[in-house]
C-alpha cells in the first residue's frame, strides 16, 4: 500500500497560517513609519536657541552646543496635545538624569516659552525650528517625535507619539542603557 498524503488538515493549516499573518497586520500601525535616518548622523543644524526674550536676537547654535553623551531629541510644539500629555514624563526623565534636547517644531517662540514656564522645562537645550525646515532634514512628519542620539551623534532610534512610562521601559530604556555602556566601556 502506498503512503497517502493526508490532506484533511491542509485547510486548517492554511487557515492557521493566514490567521498568523493577519494577526500581525492587526497590531501593526501603518501610520507609524520607520525613520529613513536611523544609523545616519544627526543632520547638521544652525538653529536659534529658544531665548527668554525674543527669537530674532537669539544666538544660533550648532551641534557643538549639544550636551555630551547620548541624548533624547524631543520634537514638540504647543499646538500638539500629545506633547502636553508626555511632558510630565519628560520632566521625570530629566529628573532621573536623562539628557533631553527639545526641538520646538513649527511654533511660536513666545508660546513655547510660556509652555515651559507653565509645565516645567525638562530640556538641557531648546532649539527653535519655526519654519519646520530642520524637521524636514530629520524626516519629522508630526509632533511629538523623539530621537535617540548616541555620543557619536548618530540617530539610533525614533519614537513617534508620546513617550510614556511604558514606551520608555519597553523600547527606549534598553537602547539608552546600551548607549551608556558604549560611552563607558
Amino acid at each position, binding site marked *: 500500500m502506498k503512503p*497517502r498524503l493526508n490532506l484533511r488538515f491542509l485547510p486548517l493549516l492554511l487557515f492557521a497560517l493566514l490567521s498568523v499573518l493577519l494577526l500581525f497586520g492587526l497590531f501593526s500601525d*501603518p501610520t507609524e*513609519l520607520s525613520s*529613513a*535616518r536611523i544609523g545616519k548622523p544627526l543632520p547638521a543644524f544652525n538653529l536659534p536657541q529658544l531665548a527668554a526674550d525674543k527669537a530674532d536676537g537669539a544666538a544660533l547654535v550648532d551641534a557643538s552646543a549639544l550636551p555630551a553623551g547620548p541624548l533624547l531629541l524631543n520634537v514638540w510644539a504647543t499646538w500638539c496635545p500629545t506633547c502636553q500629555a508626555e511632558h510630565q514624563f519628560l520632566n521625570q526623565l530629566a529628573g532621573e538624569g536623562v539628557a533631553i534636547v527639545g526641538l520646538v517644531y513649527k511654533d511660536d517662540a513666545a508660546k513655547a516659552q510660556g509652555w515651559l514656564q507653565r509645565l516645567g522645562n525638562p530640556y538641557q537645550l531648546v532649539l527653535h525650528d519655526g*519654519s519646520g*525646515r530642520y524637521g524636514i532634514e*530629520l524626516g519629522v512628519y508630526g509632533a511629538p517625535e523623539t530621537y535617540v542620539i548616541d555620543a557619536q551623534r548618530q540617530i539610533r532610534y525614533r519614537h513617534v507619539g508620546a513617550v510614556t512610562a511604558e514606551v520608555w521601559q519597553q523600547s527606549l530604556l534598553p537602547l539608552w542603557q546600551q548607549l551608556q555602556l558604549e560611552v563607558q566601556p
Partner: protein
Amino acid sequence: MIGRALLAPLLALLLALALSLPALAAIDSYSFDNAAQEQLFRELVAELRCPKCQNNNLHDSDAELAKDLRDLVYAKVREGASREQVIAYLVERYGPFIHYQPPAPAAAMIVVPVLLFLLLGCGWLWWWLKRPQPEDEQGAGDKP
C-alpha cells in the same frame, strides 16, 4: 417612493461634489520660468506622498507638512534640480514610502512566483481531490 427615486441622483451629486473637493485645493500661486519646470513640479507633487496623511499626495493634502514639502519641491525645481534629484532628496529623509511609485519594485516581484505557485497548487489540489478513487480504498466513508 418618490424619495427613493431621488436618492440615487442625489447620492451621485454628493459623490461628485466630494470627489471634486481636492481639485479645489489648487496649486498655490507658484510661478515658473518655463513650462517644463511647471510640468515637472506638477508631476512631482502628484506622485509624492504626504507622510502625514498617507492617502494624499503632496498636491491634494491640506496638511501643514505637505505645504512645506510643496514649497521645498518648488524651490528645488526652480533651482534646476532634476526629477530624480528631488525624489532622492525626499527619500533620503522620509524613506521610499514618500514616493507613490517606488522606482525599484524588485522585492515586490516575489509576488509573481508566489501567485504562480498558488495557482498551480490549487489546480493540482483540485485534480487530486477529483481523481477517481481506487476500488480497494478503505478510508472513504461515503461509500457503502
